[in-house]
């Protein structure tokens, strides 16, 4: 290191300039981003997408194969499958995003506190270990059955088992950052504990959390579908992909499309979110980089 160095590297170049090469290197990430965008658009503009009312029963039109009128055919109650798949994106995205936001915010708060306040650390982390010992789906089923089925309950039930993982991640970052000399310099400069956490520790957690949020989002969508499929999830009147598959199960031999279309939508969305998460991780957290 010579003192002549220290050339100006524009911040933008390091933060965003690398996105274009990223697209060339990871075509799947770009495809995933497009799929996710389409999913979001479908959820927002569902009524405009040549759909009918997803709850309309039509006993005369039961189990019809795909046609001009109903693109994906109809189910055992004569409901339009295309309509229900499109409306299903609303449930999946709502659950995925809500769980990601909730579990990251709660986990961040607990993780910061546990990582920095040593007395709390032992207690909080043992509680988290306990939560992690119970399978997530099992815990979610228990929580839903305790409080009755609604979209809110499902979101809470999926959030709770996701929190410990976020807490561990945040705590790990806090434990490394708190030893850094710049944090000690801030202490010597009289910075209060909350300010140290917000100014110095939090920004170092953000990249890891963004990546973690995508994984939480994907896994929440999957858990929601599992819960609905088992009948412990969103109430049956709400058109969610899990519900559709659960109801179509009995008709699988004669009308496999009732399960296949929502199943494919679910698989595609979750895959896209996961691949996007991997891409973000490679970009934001080069230490963990692994080829997608």
């Amino acid at each position, binding site marked *: *290191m*010579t*003192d*002549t*160095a*220290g*050339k*100006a*590297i524009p*911040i933008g170049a*390091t933060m965003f300039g690398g996105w274009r090469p990223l697209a060339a290197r990871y075509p799947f990430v770009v495809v995933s981003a497009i799929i996710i965008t389409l999913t979001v658009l479908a959820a927002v503009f569902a009524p405009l997408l040549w759909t009918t009312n997803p709850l309309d029963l039509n006993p005369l039109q039961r189990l019809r194969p795909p046609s001009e009128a109903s693109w994906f055919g109809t189910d055992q109650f004569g409901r339009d499958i295309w309509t229900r798949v499109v409306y299903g994106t609303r449930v999946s995205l709502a659950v995925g995003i809500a769980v990601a936001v909730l579990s990251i915010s709660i986990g961040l708060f607990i993780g910061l506190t546990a990582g920095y306040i040593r007395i709390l650390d032992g207690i909080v982390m043992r509680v988290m270990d306990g939560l992690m010992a119970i399978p997530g789906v099992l815990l979610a089923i228990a929580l839903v059955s305790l409080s009755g089925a609604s979209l809110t309950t499902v979101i809470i039930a999926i959030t709770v088992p996701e929190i410990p993982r976020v807490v561990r991640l945040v705590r790990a970052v806090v434990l490394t950052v708190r030893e*850094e*000399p*710049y944090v*000690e*310099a*801030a*202490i*010597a*400069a*009289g*910075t*209060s504990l909350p*300010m140290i956490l917000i*100014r*110095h520790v939090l*920004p*170092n957690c953000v990249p890891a959390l963004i990546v973690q949020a995508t994984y939480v989002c994907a896994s929440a969508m999957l858990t929601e579908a599992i819960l609905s499929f088992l009948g412990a999830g969103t109430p049956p009147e709400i058109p969610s992909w899990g519900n559709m598959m659960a109801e179509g199960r009995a008709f699988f031999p004669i009308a496999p499309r009732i399960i296949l279309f929502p199943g494919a939508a679910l698989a595609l969305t979750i895959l896209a979110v996961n691949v996007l998460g991997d891409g973000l991780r490679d970009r934001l957290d080069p230490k963990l980089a692994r080829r997608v």
Partner: protein
Amino acid sequence: MPPVLNVENLTVQLPAGADRLNAVEDVSFSVAPGEIVCVVGESGSGKSVTAHSIMGLLPRRQFTIASGRVLLEGGELLTKSAAEMRAIRGDRISMIFQEPMTALNPVMKVGDQIAEVLDIHTDLNEGERRARALEVMEAVRLPDPERMIDAYPHQLSGGQRQRIMIAAALVLDPALLIADEPTTALDVTTQAQILKLIKELRERRNTGVLFITHDFGVVAEVASRVVVMQHGKVVEQGTTEEVLRRPKHDYTRMLIRSVPSLSPPARAPIDNEPIVLQTNNLTKTYVSGGFFAKRRVVEAAKDVNLLVRRGETLGVVGESGSGKSTVARCIARLIDPTDGAILIKGADVAKLSASALRPHRKRVQIVFQDPYRSLNPRRNVGASITEGPVNFGMSPQAAHERARELMRLVGLDPDALSRFPHQFSGGQRQRVCIARALAMEPEILVADEPVSALDVSVQAQVLELIDDVRKRFSLAVLFITHDLRVAAQVCDRIAVMHKGEVVEEGATAAVFGAPQHAYTRALFDSAPGRNFEFGKFET
């Protein structure tokens, strides 16, 4: 005698977009049997790339060897296949690294790590391998090899680990030993032993040694010939006498002149200034262990009594583990002392609670060793400098104005306040850290190894800056260092620490002139190049 190693016009390209085209450009030198050739240069000079290209260990994706030849005992190395290079490495060339802890496998007995080399390159059976390992451990002067051969790396000291590394490197009697900063991570007394060992081994075994270093003291100690590198090019080479006494190139002269002298300059004693900082029987005890581990009590600092007057620099000198950093961190109250008093202008702050301590915080500021970690990478340096004053109620505008002033004072462009740490070099970052400390208008500046991570030419500038701000603001400076040369130049008084205790204390000239304690004498005797007066050139 034909040379063991001949490097001819070696050019290694850096990947596109790096700060220069070639990592190494048109480098030529040779190493004869039984000769120690030192390659000296500052960081980024290409010395390690040179060593790694000889070993065939360059990461292929980043570096391309554009031209040149590397001949080992007359045979070209650059055209060899990976398998052929593997056969040569360890057998004909071997390498020792800077960090003996990470270079050894922590879950493998050290004897097995030496024997592994034999297992790969020879047909010896297990018993013979063990015998050879014992023999070579004896040769590198490890105490009690019979017992040590079954030890794991963590059971050995840093110096012993480096000896194991050297033993593994020498077990097959290579023609060439490449040593990449082998003593940089070691304490000075251990370094002296390892340097002695390397000198002895090359005499006994006639091995050619390529010794990479940044330390001119080490060069004066071991080198037969010296190659000086800058920005990937060889600027000068010749015998040690020639290069150190009669350097031709300006860069070499500048480097040698930057090496601080071991003889302290005359300083007027500072006796009538008020005492700013005083510690009385300062003690810090660490207790480890718990449920499963045995309770262990470590006295990191024991009954430390120090005293610093206004405008005075007190040097705390010692090796790693001597407790000097513990003392510094206690005084800055980054850790809580177990016992004793810390008096800042007579007020005891040793036991104050966080809130009671707050008004005293700004009176003690600290500058850390590693300039790469002491600034938050995600905040611009302006935010780092103004953080403290704003905490204590200064308005952000006023703090910013003050920061601009301080940037000028430490020799940086005030407009650089909006830049981020990665846009500065190591020396510049250390200047920013000094500005940050000064922003609090402290009375005491604790400098914890502030120049140890810097190149020698930058080191001189930062030391000058610290001395300058001491005079300008009449600061009491507590200067922690392991480097005797640096201590000799900047300190008014010196306290020598050993195993948590101050063993000797006095005016710098007195301690350097006539050390009283046996440990101090051993420490001074280990300083590399102590018999060499740097910067006195003959024409």
